[in-house]
């Protein structure tokens, strides 16, 4: 690199010797300072990092991922396979292309050997998303896209024009074309101004449509402040995802130049030919001083001629036997040598190409042509990515040597270079026509043709057919330095190996060789790989095809996709009316679905085990209070409500009297338990169905589904009232005193307020419902009150409980208390393969009802098997071990060690706790034939040893139910 820096200074910029004296779209009045690889360098607004580096003669950006070979800048935009950098300042970001980073003051970046490094500090930038609904989405603001957008917008269509570069213009930005006798960029400016003045046009630059999906849906990422670097305002989102829904889409995404593969084709200074033209005209930078232009087609001649005019010493190496007639005069006038029938067989140089080895195509000794820039053009690949994502089929065009759209999609057009129309006149014309057709398809008034108003351009020079050359055979036969995917260090030799291994499909070869799997997703290497593969297996490109084009078109950061859906915004957090109280009383939270529930309330110095033992003991010996507001509550109303409940619950609900409560279980049609809970009959035609916290939405959906799809004749309405009602279980032998004190109008005696009944009362005008329900086996009331008044009622209960030592308890204590009574938690002790009978709950299954959902399945042979798993209790015989939940019960006799696998298994632990009441750990388990094993001792492997446990019935505390009435 240093050699090139010693070149004589150019008039334009003494600091940047390869900056032209004038021209380009950079703002030479302002100088930006940046650091690359530790060197402080300068550039101008309008530069990319790559163009600024090139202006200093810096070509090598990094070394390669596997081989450590120097790598440079391969192109001028996103198709560049090589110039990967890591931005360090203002915020670390890996895997960006120097060719697409807009230069800003203070940029600090380093080259990357193919792998990036994520920042280890949180990204403080904002990311967001917006929806956009349009008639027409035009992707690409080059001549074709602008033309289509103009026609449609003038006709009154709602248009989104989206382009990935900093400014509109596409290829016109990097060329010398004129429109209506003026520079093409002047036409672009006028078009952009006209669009801006039209209503209903959304014009987005720096915005990449990276995916096209069904029904006109497209995703785009807008880089809103990246180009501002450290000066980016913090209040603006850095990047934005646009979720576009368009009635029609026009893909005008241009074309990517295609390389030709030859030996040592990866040296810095090797570049796609058209990109050097872009660097010259758009950025005012010469990519070198002595160029060899290796081409198979006409397009590179314009590059060669214009570079020569800019003072570059140019030689053309032309694969075809004859140079194109249209360019012979221009070459001759400049004394520009054209070596026809020749190929580049290799290169010399280490950190930068110093010579191209040129030989006759038919063979012969290569000659070294000294150069510092090797430009390559193997033709053009239309950027059909978005069309292909929309499931458009491709065909191989033998003349163009590229894959083109093969069909008209119902609501997506491809136009301009993306459709293989490579000349400016054609792009403008087809853009207009496509816009016109889109207007018609949208049902808008027809756009009259006014040829005199259409822009005119010089006719393109007559074109001669391009050559089709994928790879120049290695002179020495060694294909291991012939790079197909430069970024992946994947070569022709790798493709040969893949074919040798029997692979024929480009999809397989891609995965075998990794070609096309880098940041660029094979923009320049994919079709070349297909071509080489075809030659190796004797098939044409049409038969070989391409790999599938998948979103994203260019890499999108996860932070961008996440947008604002991160941290607390990732998922709604549901809190009860008592949330602040729990917080103030030191609750440790448990996430239950989206709910925040107190798990326990540790006293100073307590761990969870100690807190839970204390809470459990308090409930069983005195009184505790739980915030059960998260329990699902469904208001079921209508004359046929009882019929619906009878059909969905396993037991009879319609016989329940108003004022009473019944426990019920719901099953699926397969007879497996779906959910459980209590049902309150509020009136003849009104019921309150209580569900588990996690099952609330599922049960409502389940009831709606049957009601709507099977029994629409039933007159029933369902509404979730989970959030409307707070619910506080007041539990324990002293609960009667507490509830009686707070609600003096209620007779809380066992006789007047029976178990499984409810009563309405008031507290200073606030309606309150009390229900004697117990999930612990203790004397208990559930206090239901509107969420608006929940806090006040809770405070009163806690105040009234002070003299009894009322203890708030959390979900963990609730779980222990219910497990001691053998009450299963659906979804913890069950898993969708468990029937009510398996749970020992025959009593909840009606024998009287002719049918209910699940009933017929209970009689299935499989559900009658005696070795089904039953819910049982387990008491570790050492009285010490808390069996981890999920532990397997193994079929190993006592005294024997674990045999070699497979070990026969009998079941598993579903719940396991330390019991304050029992003074020992216990567990619930699903155990094969469990009810017949009660009294047996089984074994469970725990931490490398076998733990013995006695099988018991599931009810370990108060099996006779003596504590229920206090």
């Amino acid at each position, binding site marked *: 690199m240093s050699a090139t820096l010693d070149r004589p200074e150019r008039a334009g910029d003494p600091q940047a010797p390869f900056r032209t004296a004038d021209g380009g779209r950079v703002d030479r009045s302002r100088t930006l300072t940046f650091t690359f690889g530790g060197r402080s360098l300068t550039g101008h607004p309008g530069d990319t990092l790559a163009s600024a580096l090139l202006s200093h003669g810096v070509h090598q950006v990094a070394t390669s991922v596997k081989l450590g070979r120097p790598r440079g800048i391969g192109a001028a935009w996103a198709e560049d396979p090589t110039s990967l950098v890591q931005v360090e300042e203002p915020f670390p970001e890996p895997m960006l292309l120097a060719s697409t980073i807009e230069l800003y003051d203070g940029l600090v970046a380093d080259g990357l050997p193919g792998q990036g490094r994520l920042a280890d500090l949180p990204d403080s930038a904002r990311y967001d998303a917006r929806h956009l609904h349009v008639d027409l989405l035009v992707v690409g603001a080059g001549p074709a896209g602008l033309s289509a957008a103009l026609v449609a917008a003038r006709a009154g269509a709602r248009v989104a024009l989206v382009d990935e570069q900093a400014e509109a213009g596409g290829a016109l930005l990097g060329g010398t074309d004129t429109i209506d006798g003026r520079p093409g960029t002047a036409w672009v400016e006028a078009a952009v101004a006209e669009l801006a003045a039209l209503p209903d046009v959304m014009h987005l630059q720096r915005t990449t449509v990276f995916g096209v999906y*069904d029904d006109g849906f497209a995703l785009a990422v807008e880089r809103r402040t990246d180009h501002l670097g450290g000066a980016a305002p913090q209040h603006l989102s850095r990047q934005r995802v646009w979720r576009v829904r368009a009635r029609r889409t026009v893909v005008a995404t241009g074309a990517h130049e295609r390389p030709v593969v030859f030996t040592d084709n990866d040296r810095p200074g090797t570049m796609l030919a058209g990109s050097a033209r872009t660097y010259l005209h758009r950025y005012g930078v010469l990519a070198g001083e002595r160029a060899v232009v290796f081409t198979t087609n006409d397009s590179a001649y314009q590059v060669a001629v214009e570079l020569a005019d800019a003072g570059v010493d140019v030689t053309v190496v032309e694969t075809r036997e004859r140079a194109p007639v249209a360019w012979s005069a221009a070459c001759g006038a400049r004394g520009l040598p054209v070596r026809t029938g020749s190929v580049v067989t290799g290169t010399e140089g280490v950190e930068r190409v110093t010579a191209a080895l040129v030989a006759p195509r038919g063979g012969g000794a290569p000659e070294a042509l000294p150069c510092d820039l090797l430009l390559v053009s193997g033709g053009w690949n239309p950027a059909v990515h978005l069309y292909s994502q929309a499931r458009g089929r491709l065909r191989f065009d033998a003349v163009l040597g590229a894959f083109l759209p093969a069909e008209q999609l119902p609501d997506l057009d491809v136009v301009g270079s993306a459709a293989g129309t490579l000349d400016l006149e054609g792009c403008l014309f087809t853009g207009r026509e496509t816009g016109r057709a889109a207007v018609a398809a949208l049902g808008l008034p027809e756009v009259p043709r006014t040829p005199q108003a259409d822009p005119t351009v010089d006719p393109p020079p007559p074109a001669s057919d391009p050559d089709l050359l994928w790879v120049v055979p290695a002179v020495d036969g060694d294909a291991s330095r012939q790079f197909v995917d430069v970024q992946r260090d994947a070569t022709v030799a790798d493709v040969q190996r893949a074919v040798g291994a029997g692979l024929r499909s480009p999809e397989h070869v891609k995965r075998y060789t990794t070609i096309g799997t880098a940041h660029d997703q094979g923009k320049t290497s994919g079709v070349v790989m297909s071509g080489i593969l075809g030659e190796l297996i004797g098939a044409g490109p049409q038969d070989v095809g391409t790999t599938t084009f998948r979103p994203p078109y260019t890499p999108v950061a996860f932070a961008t996709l996440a947008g604002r859906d991160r941290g607390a915004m990732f998922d709604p957090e549901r809190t009860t009316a008592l949330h602040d109280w729990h917080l103030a009383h030191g609750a440790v939270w448990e996430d239950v679905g989206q709910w925040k529930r107190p798990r326990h309330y540790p006293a100073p110095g307590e761990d969870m085990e100690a807190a839970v033992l204390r809470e459990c003991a308090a409930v069983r010996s005195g009184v505790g209070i739980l915030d059960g507001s998260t329990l699902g509550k469904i208001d079921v109303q209508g004359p046929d409500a009882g019929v619906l409940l009878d059909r969905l619950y396993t037991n009879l609900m319609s016989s329940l009297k108003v004022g009473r409560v019944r426990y019920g279980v719901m099953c699926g*049609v*397969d007879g497996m338990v779906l959910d459980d809970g209590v049902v309150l009959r509020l009136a003849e035609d009104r019921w309150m169905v209580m569900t588990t916290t996690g099952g609330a939405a599922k049960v409502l959906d389940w009831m709606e589904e049957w009601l709507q*799809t099977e029994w629409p004749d039933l007159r029933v309405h369902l509404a979730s009232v989970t959030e409307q009602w707070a619910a506080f279980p007041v539990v324990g032998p002293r609960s009667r005193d507490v509830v009686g004190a707070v609600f003096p109008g209620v007779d809380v005696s066992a006789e007047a307020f029976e178990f499984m009944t409810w009563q309405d009362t008031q507290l200073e005008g606030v309606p309150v419902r009390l229900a004697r329900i117990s999930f612990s086996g203790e004397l208990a009331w559930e206090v239901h009150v509107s969420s608006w008044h929940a806090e006040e009622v809770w405070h009163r209960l806690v105040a009234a409980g002070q003299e009894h030592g009322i203890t708030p308890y959390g979900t963990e204590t609730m779980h222990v208390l219910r497990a001691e009574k053998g009450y299963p938690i659906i979804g913890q002790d069950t898993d969708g393969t468990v029937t009510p009978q398996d749970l020992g709950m025959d009593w909840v299954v009606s024998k009287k009802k002719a*049918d209910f959902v699940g009933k017929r399945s209970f009689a299935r042979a499989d559900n009658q098997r005696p070795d089904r798993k039953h819910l049982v209790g387990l008491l570790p015989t050492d009285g010490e071990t808390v069996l981890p939940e999920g532990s397997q019960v193994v079929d190993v006799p006592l005294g024997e060690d674990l045999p070699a696998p497979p070990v026969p298994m009998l079941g598993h632990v579903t719940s396991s706790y330390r019991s304050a009441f029992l003074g020992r750990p216990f567990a619930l388990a699903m155990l094969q034939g469990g009810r017949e094993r009660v009294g047996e001792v089984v074994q469970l492997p725990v931490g490398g040893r076998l733990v013995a446990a006695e099988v018991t019935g599931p009810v370990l505390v108060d099996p006779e139910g003596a504590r229920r009435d206090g």
Partner: protein
Amino acid sequence: MQLIECPWCGPREEVEFSYGGQAHVPYPESPAELDDEQWAHYVFFRDNTRGTLAERWNHGAGCRRWFNAMRDTVSYRFSAVYRTAEPMPASVPLTGAGSSSASATTSTTTSTTTTGR
């Protein structure tokens, strides 16, 4: 992301909907009279159609209503949506990608699992 036409709300994005499996599989009138195999057909067996299938959909994040739809299982294209009470429309020719398999349809959507009727 596809648009699905809710017969009550109009076209909405697919994330608002949930799939409810094959349509026109009514709950048998007298399950007790079915043998295990017949019952198993109702509980476990559904058509595995390549082509147009009548399906149940629920507009869960919208009007919360269930409805039926004819959809091509290859192209995912919907050819018809209809309310639950309405009869299944005759096979509708599909347009667009993947429609080639749309012909072998209506017979398969009504053939099974109505043993209880």
